[in-house]
Structure formats: structure tokens, C-alpha cells
């Protein structure tokens, strides 16, 4: 038998099978990220042009008050969205972990919004939050005439309506992650703690929750990722308004790139979004990869 017999089709086949995906990764992921970065260094407007202007687009971007307010909105929305989702998700998970009779049914109810499109969620909440037809009118009709809940048309408050709808959609998902984390904990630890005389509260606060740190971490990553990418929900709920009150980077990028024909600045904003996600992600991946690998 010859030395080359093994380097036949069996040798190349796995590589051949993988090659379409290698091409996808090189072109659609890495190539396009580089391409976007390159465009962000040019003075492209409606069409990409390759006249390089250095970091001028970034300078313009950060002098643009709309961009700055969209960043601030993202900070407000992101912090509240992540914070509230985590708290609601954790509390629900702990409550559901108390040997609840209808756990399966309740879990299904809490989680179903995650199956919906953000567009559907936005459409529904836009209607519920509309003061003239939704909740405000409902309370008025009940007899509380002075009740006011007009956040969606109030530029100072509109961003919080995005948080309400976002939490409605995503908190069940955080609950599911936390519940899986709680179920993954070795029950003998809990029994040992109870034998030591720890109360249920201190079992959770001192043993279970600290041991779920990785779960918190991955929930945080997922939520941060959702927040930075959030586009559909805001488009459907407020359309970025009233005015630019609920503008976020994703909407800014879309409008400048595809509606205003300012590709350069749109690309620059996309690069900033990517950098933000990487800044959150890389420490996470780094800590993940440092763990011993499974076989």
C-alpha cells in the first residue's frame, strides 16, 4: 500500500465539506467587517467611494448631536433593560424553583413573548401605551380621570416605554436561563447548607446565587447584545420618536446609510457598534477559553 493512499478523497472530503462555510466566514463575516471599516474611512455618500479621509467621519459622528443623543438613549435603555430583565428573570426563576405545581404552564406563559417578532411586540405595545386608546383611557374610563400615562408621546419619557416593551419580551428568556442554572446546581450543597441551619433566604443569597456567576455573565452578554442591536422594537414602537427621543445607534446607522445617503458616517457608526459589542464580548470569551476544554 502506498503512502499516498490515505491522502485520497477521505483526506480532502472533510475540508471540502467545510469550505462553503469557510468562504462564508471569510467573505460575509470578516471581509464585510473590514469593508465596512474601510468605508468608514472614506468620504462615501450615496455610493461607496474610496477617497480616504482618515477618521474624519468619526469626528463628524461624534460632533453630531443626534448620534450623541442616540448613544445616551442606548445607555439609558441598555442599563434599564438589562437591569430590569435580570432582576425580573432572577426573581421569577427563584419563585418557580419552589416546587410550583403548574411550573410548566407558567414557564410557557412567561417565555412565549420571546417567540414573537419585535415588530409584533412593538405594534401591540404601541397600541396599549397610546394614551387615547390604551391603558390611560382604560383607567380614565374606570373613573380615575386625572391618571396620566402618556410616556410614549412624551419625549422625556418615551425611552422608558421601549424598556417596558423590551422587558416584556425578553425577561422570560432570562428567567429560563436562570432556571436552568438553578437546576444545574448540585442539590447536595443546598442540603448541606440547610443542615448547617441556613435559612432559605441565605441559601439563595449566599450559596446559590454566587455559584451562578457564569449564568449571570451569559445572560448579561445576551441582553447587552440584544440592546445594542435593538432596531425592530423601536421602529415598530416609536419609530425613533417622538422627535428623536428614542433614537438609538441602530436606527441612526440605518437612516444615515439607507435613507440619507451618507454611507461614510453610517459605516463609522456601525464600526462603533461593533467595537462596543466586542468590548463586552472579548473579556467574556477570554475567560471562557481559559477554562479547561472539554474533550
Amino acid at each position, binding site marked *: *500500500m*502506498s*503512502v499516498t*493512499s*490515505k491522502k485520497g478523497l*477521505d483526506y480532502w472530503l472533510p475540508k471540502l465539506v467545510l469550505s462553503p462555510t469557510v468562504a462564508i466566514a471569510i467573505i460575509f463575516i470578516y471581509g464585510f467587517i473590514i469593508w465596512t471599516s474601510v468605508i468608514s474611512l472614506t468620504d462615501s455618500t450615496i455610493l461607496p467611494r474610496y477617497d480616504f479621509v482618515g477618521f474624519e467621519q468619526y469626528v463628524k459622528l461624534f460632533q453630531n448631536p443626534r448620534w450623541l443623543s442616540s448613544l445616551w438613549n442606548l445607555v439609558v435603555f441598555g442599563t434599564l433593560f438589562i437591569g430590569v430583565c435580570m432582576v425580573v428573570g432572577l426573581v421569577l426563576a427563584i419563585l418557580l424553583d419552589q416546587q410550583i405545581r403548574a411550573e410548566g404552564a407558567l414557564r410557557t406563559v412567561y417565555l412565549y413573548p420571546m417567540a414573537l417578532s419585535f415588530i409584533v411586540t412593538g405594534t401591540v405595545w404601541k397600541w396599549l401605551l397610546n394614551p387615547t386608546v390604551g391603558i390611560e383611557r382604560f383607567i380614565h374610563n374606570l373613573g380615575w380621570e386625572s391618571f396620566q400615562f402618556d410616556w410614549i408621546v412624551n419625549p422625556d419619557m418615551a425611552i422608558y416605554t421601549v424598556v417596558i416593551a423590551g422587558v416584556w419580551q425578553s425577561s422570560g428568556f432570562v428567567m429560563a436561563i436562570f432556571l436552568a442554572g438553578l437546576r444545574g446546581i448540585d442539590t447536595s450543597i443546598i442540603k448541606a447548607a440547610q443542615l448547617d441551619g441556613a435559612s432559605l433566604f441565605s441559601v439563595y443569597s449566599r450559596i446559590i446565587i454566587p455559584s451562578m456567576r457564569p449564568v449571570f455573565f451569559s445572560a448579561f452578554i445576551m441582553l447587552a447584545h440584544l440592546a445594542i442591536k435593538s432596531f425592530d422594537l423601536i421602529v415598530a414602537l416609536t419609530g425613533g420618536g417622538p422627535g428623536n427621543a428614542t433614537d438609538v445607534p441602530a436606527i441612526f446607522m440605518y437612516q444615515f446609510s439607507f435613507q440619507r445617503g451618507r454611507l461614510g458616517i453610517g459605516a463609522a457608526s456601525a464600526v462603533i457598534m461593533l467595537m462596543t459589542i466586542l468590548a463586552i464580548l472579548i473579556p467574556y470569551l477570554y475567560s471562557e477559553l481559559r477554562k479547561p476544554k472539554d474533550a
Partner: protein
Amino acid sequence: MAELNIKNVNKSFGTTDVLKGINLDIQDGEFIILVGPSGCGKSTLLNCIAGLEDVTSGDIMIGDDNVTYAAPKDRDIAMVFQSYALYPNMNVRKNIAFGLEIRKMPKDEIAAEVERVAKLLQIENLLDRKPSQLSGGQRQRVAMGRALARRPKTYLFDEPLSNLDAKLRVEMRTEMKKLHQRLGTTIVYVTHDQIEAMTLADRIAVMKDGIVQQFGTPQQVYDDPANIFVAGFMGSPSMNFLECSVVKTADGFGVQIESQGKTFELAADPAQADLSAYEGKNVVLGIRPEQITHVMPHVESQPFVTRVPVKIEVTEPTGADTLVLTHINGQECECRVHPTEAGNPGEQMDLLFNMSKAVFFDAQTENRI
């Protein structure tokens, strides 16, 4: 013919050398056991023989064919895995038939072969079950059946019994031996269990750190270990290793030991080792627990037997014998005595050190003197 010759095989993963210059000449029909602690490279060597891993250098010959670069399917080898690796989606019949189907054997021949194997292993009643419906022992049989069905020249076993409970393991061990006697084919069998190695093998290759430390019959490996590692690995309870100095005795050389502040000279059997070069230096005395016994007149009268009083520290009854733990030269020493002769912990007891089977190792190189 299915001689299996492994010539100077090296295997590295990246910068780690897993196999370092392995040479094994295996006769047709031999039952060979590769034994060693986990990470010694025994499973890697088996995978290399199977062709599941490429060797970095060296040659593997089956009969007259150099199969070093042949695909696994072209080596005429069957393998039984520790996890059994039964195809979970197929019933037992399909599992056994799969390899034959791939080799395009006619349907009626396959059916006949499955019947034959099932009968041989007494699994006829399991043929229509899925692996998930089988017990551990049954899965093990099916895995064997899958290997047997192809009638290969060589069988490879990768710790096939280690997932079974103790009782079943002993039963299967016996069956495995019978099977080998009936089939007469070459078997290479990996285990970390030295009892399995002793009971099953025609020859044992003891491995450590990617090197074959010793390759010989079970008795050779047990009585004539090549170094401290082999001596310590084979046998349970393990051989005692006592560092002691070599002294000149009346008619040769011996070693000095100390028990409870008194020193004793144990004369060495010149047939076991020539200690002349080590006079005044320290060597490691290797003596198995069964060579240190309670006082029996017919033993005491033999040459190279010395009576030494010791202090009993711990006793471990095993039923047939009682193991007595004491300290010699400040080192732990286990001795095997008759249960009725064993004293209680803290008591004094006389023991006979029979040096006729004792071995000596160089204290630095740990090799046999």
C-alpha cells in the same frame, strides 16, 4: 499470517510526545496486553494500530503488509471499545451486520454470520433490541459480536471490561480467555487493571510515559521486573521498596535493615543479583508481601531466609491472608501472614524475610540490578 510488528513507532500531538520509539513483535495468535497508568500512551498505541490515528514515524506491519498508512478498513482489524460504541439507532442485529453490509457481503451470508456470532456469544434473544434496552454486560457482548462477525485477523480491545461491575468483570474475563483459545487469533488488549493483565495475557507490555518498560510473560513481569515502576505496578498489594545499604556477608553480599532500633543483615541470593559493585552504597530492595511471612519452620530452614522481629502497626484481614503493616528502615512495609498468626496492632511479631525472590534496584536509575 497475522503477526503484528510495531517498529520504532513515535507519535506526537503538537509538542507532546505520546509514544516514544515503541517496538513490539507480536506472534500470530498471541494474546497481548498493554498495561499502564492512564496517560501512558497505551490507548494511543492501540488507535495507531487500528489506523484511527496516524503515527508520526515508524512502521506497523500486519503479516507481510506494511499498513502504516493504510485506512482502518483496509487493515482487517476489529476493535471493541470501552464505551462499546454500539450504534444507538440500530438494533443488535443491524449493529453486528453493519460492517458486513459495508463490505457488500450477500444478504443471506450476513444473516448466517449474525446467527453464528449470536449463538457463540449467547445473545440470540437480544437481536431485535436497541442498545438502550441492554444491560452493560449485554452491550459488551454485542460489541464483541460486532467485532467477531467480520472474522478479522486481529482484534483490538480498549479496556472492554472497565465499565462492568466487579462480578461481571471476572466472569467476562474468563469468557474472554476461552474465546481467545477457541478463535486463536491475535489479540491486543489495553487495560489499566494489572489483574486483568496477569490473568489474560500471553505476554504483557507494561507502558509508562510513552515507553514500553517491559515486554514479557506475566510471570517474567511479576518475578523479574525491569525497574521499580514495573515492579510496583504489577501485583496487589504492591511490592515493598526499602532503601537500604549493601554490606558484605559471610558468603557474599546482603543488605542491612533496621527494625525497632536493631539492625539485621539479609543475605542476598547471588542468583537474583550481583551486588558486589554496590558495597557500601544504597540500593532499593524490592520484596513482595508474600515473601515476608510469619515463622514457619520449613521456610526458616531454607537459605536466604532471615527472622526479623517487627512491631505491628496495622492489620488488614483479606480473608485468605492478613496483611501486616510495619516500618522497616523507616519505610512502610507490608507483609502477608496467615490470619491465625497475625498479632494485634502495637504487638511484637517475628517475620521471615525470604530473599530468594527479592530483587534489587539502583537507587538512582531505578533500574534492576
